[in-house]
């Protein structure tokens, strides 16, 4: 159930510049408004794209978040691969990785 709250946070952040400002100025207060597990809260506060991916966030929500964080395209893809290497396969949702961690389909 809780991955829903994680996704809701990303949804709110991605579309609302006010939430984006709060994420930068007072992340604890902002994240406290969502029912997150400790792991989710830490991952969001740190902008840990790899862990958020493994937790099962919808990929589109995460992709927009990664763009907001300023990750380049290769860095974003690599962060997700690193997340799987570190934390294991994606735990929920339909955005699982079907390629190998060393496989770069688009060359990046």
């Amino acid at each position: 159930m809780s991955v829903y709250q994680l996704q809701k946070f990303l949804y709110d952040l991605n579309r609302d510049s006010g939430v984006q400002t709060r994420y930068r100025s007072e992340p604890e207060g902002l994240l406290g408004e969502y029912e997150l597990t400790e792991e989710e809260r830490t991952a969001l506060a740190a902008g840990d794209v790899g862990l958020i991916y493994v937790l099962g966030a919808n990929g589109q929500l995460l992709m927009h978040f990664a763009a907001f964080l300023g990750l380049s395209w290769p860095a974003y893809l690599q962060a997700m691969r690193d997340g799987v290497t570190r934390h294991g396969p994606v735990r929920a949702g339909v955005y699982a990785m079907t390629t190998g961690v060393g496989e770069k389909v688009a060359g990046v």
Partner: protein
Amino acid sequence: MSLVFAGICSHAPGITGRANLADEALRAPFYDAYHRMREQLWATRPDALVIIAAEHFANFFMNNMPSFAIGMADQYSGPIEDPGWLSIARRSIPGNSTLSRELICEIMQTADIAFAEEWKFDHGIMVPLHFLTPNYDLPVVPVNINCQGPPLVPLHRAWVFGEAVRRAADRIPQRIAVIGTGGISHWPATPDSGKINEAWDRKFLERWTRNDREALLSYSDLDTYRDAGQGGFEIRTFISVAAAARGRGQLHHYAPIPIFAVGCTIATMEVAA
């Protein structure tokens, strides 16, 4: 008056945002096809563009998810994404709330839809508009089919929705263009980004150009997920356009461009009686 134009096109954010990373020999012909689609669209002198898109949580979320939603505003805005990342500047886009309302009321006769007086566009709409209405001078009626947050509407309902769009367009005095935007097979927003099942895509497009209703509606979501990735759920938008146009399609461009994460597609469909 009627539906005057129908087409489908890809909307992946890499098309604009990662243009500089693409092989020029692949990018240029695709952009050319998009530009020819713009010329074809404008040659039909449309009064408004109905854009049937699959958005990515720009407006609709699992707290209150409509299967179908139609915009009813005089103005929209976009992109929600970082404009530098998408290489499309943030701006307002003209709508037409009166026209939207007329279409909505007629569509509601046979399809259950939500309406929205606020709408922020994401790449699903901004990328096609960037090519097709670069001066943002054609009023847009945004449509969303939920292709992101399961449970997803069955394909046969996307067909019925397309039929309703057609009936509505035929009942109003304005000249309406309709486009569907989405990907065919693709695994976007995963480390698999760039994976494309070209054989699956070509088979789908062959069914689409034949406007073979039965074949288009025969995909199960499980099969689509296995063979075409979660991105394949967006075929709903293409299916609605086929139902609206009723004619034969013409494929103008198809080529996988891995850095764009999708088989880049441009096709139009004859509007049949």
